[in-house]
């Protein structure tokens, strides 16, 4: 029976100090690894005997403007369909140099998910076949979901911000 403890044990055996901050919020095993280690961890989880995490559930990014040097987090969520187990791991990267290796070679799903993370947060996925904006117009020059940008379009004239409580 595959459980969170077995996975954590196998990960620490293989990677040692490179995987840390193990937690289990609401039952899902979560850990952090170094930025350059993400593909190795994903490959290990997918290929190694007995683990079988062959399904990339989700890939997203989060912006923490207060953690200087580690502002952008890329969150990967993997799943083992047969055992019904989910696992989540994060890599942190600097906002001035947000390079992360692309997971497109391992999972085809990662293609558009990484484009979305690039579009919204500006994470640069090294090795991605087609890293261009996916949701917003191509001429947009900023990454809208970062915390410093407002929600509303500041050039709109028909809505009075006082009345809307902004």
């Amino acid at each position, binding site marked *: 029976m595959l459980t969170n403890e077995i996975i954590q044990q196998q990960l620490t055996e293989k990677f040692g100090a490179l995987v840390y901050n193990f937690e289990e*919020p*609401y039952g*899902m095993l*979560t850990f952090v690894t170094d930025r350059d280690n993400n593909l190795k961890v994903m490959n290990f989880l997918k290929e190694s005997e007995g683990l079988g995490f*062959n*399904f*990339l*559930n*989700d890939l*997203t990014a*989060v*912006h923490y403007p207060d953690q200087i040097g580690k502002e952008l987090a890329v*969150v990967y*969520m993997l799943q083992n*369909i047969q055992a*019904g187990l*989910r696992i*989540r791991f994060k890599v942190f990267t600097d906002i001035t140099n947000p390079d992360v290796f692309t997971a497109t070679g391992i*999972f*085809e*799903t990662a*293609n*558009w*998910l990484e484009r*979305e993370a690039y579009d*919204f947060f500006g994470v640069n996925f090294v090795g991605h076949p087609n890293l261009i*904006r*996916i*949701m*917003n*117009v191509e001429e947009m020059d900023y990454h*809208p*979901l970062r915390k410093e940008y407002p*929600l509303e379009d500041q050039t709109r004239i028909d809505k009075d911000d006082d009345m809307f409580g902004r």
Partner: protein
Amino acid sequence: MSQKQNIQLPEGSLGKQTTTLNLGPTHPATHGVFQNILEMDGERIIDAVPTIGFIHRAFEKIAEHRPYYQITPLTDRLNYCSSPINNMGWHMTVEKLIHAELPKRVEYLRVIIMELSRIADHLVCNSVIGVDTGAFTGFIYVFELRELIYEIFEEVCGSRLTTNIGRIGGFERNFSELAFQKIDHFLSVFPKAMKEFETLFNRNRIFMERTMGVGGIAAERALNYGFTGPNLRATGIDYDIRTAHPYSGYQDFDFSVPVGTTGDVYDRYLVRNAEIWESISIITQAVKKIKDLDPSVFHADIPDFYLPEKADVYSKMEALIYHFKIVMGETAIPAGEVYHSVEGGNGELGFYLISDGGRSPYRLHFRRPCFIYYQAYPEIIKGSMLSDAVVTMSSLNLIAGEIDA
């Protein structure tokens, strides 16, 4: 009154042998706004480049500025053919965050609503496959049945399509006698009508020849692309969130998960058809189970998150304080990160919520199934003809609101 239009052709386009066809954002089959630029050699498709984002409404950014109870109308507009499932999924995510326990009756009522909306979603998809092969009758016929489902939603929450149904902790009001009568009426009328719909399509020779062997995908490629839901089950893998990670009392119900073999359009149609029958059986079981439970229970006892009755707010002090705290956002919402998923009409609809204890989420990300499996579309249609590509697109049940969020 028309103006001269400057059409700029891309580089080298006049010299090449293949044609570039723009299956543009305005589709003639009301599927939704996404664009495919196809490279064609005569009638065969050689390559396809999809473009999305034509209805990007920035849900994830809006969610960072709204309190938890105001995000429900936002989730409605993801997969708008089956909005109650999205609403329930969001409520369950927040209930997981605050460790709320729901009474059985609330869970079973939620199951009834979710299965009704699953039927509505699959009805639209199956009839639109018919429309794309030229059979308009099934579509018109099916919408008459959807009106019955709309009436049930209207009786429970007041709205037909984008329902904003339920609250964090249960429902906003108890289901009335009329709602149960409408559900019973629906259960008595629907099977006969569904059989007529099936006789129209299931063994129809033209439909079978148009859809068998078209738009298939292998099971390993489907897993690699992240398929979930009926599209994955049509390839042979029986992954259903309702059985793998049960929620809202699904473990108490007896239902089977239909599975196909080749993953082509005909298999997807049959899987959705079979799921409609399973949903009918689940709703019948739920209605029977509810008769044994206390009929006055329609929400959990979590006064910190569930708005009190208005009559109490005007007369009792605690209710007034709770009302004030909830609306102004002074309640103590725990900080943490939670991921919860439900079986939507198209697959695993996931909600990844990071809360920092404030009034709005710190980050809310929707794992949208349509967005994830639309990436596989170019690989599925490579080498097929244009008419097959159109039928494949409609069988994948691509809802634009879910692709772009």
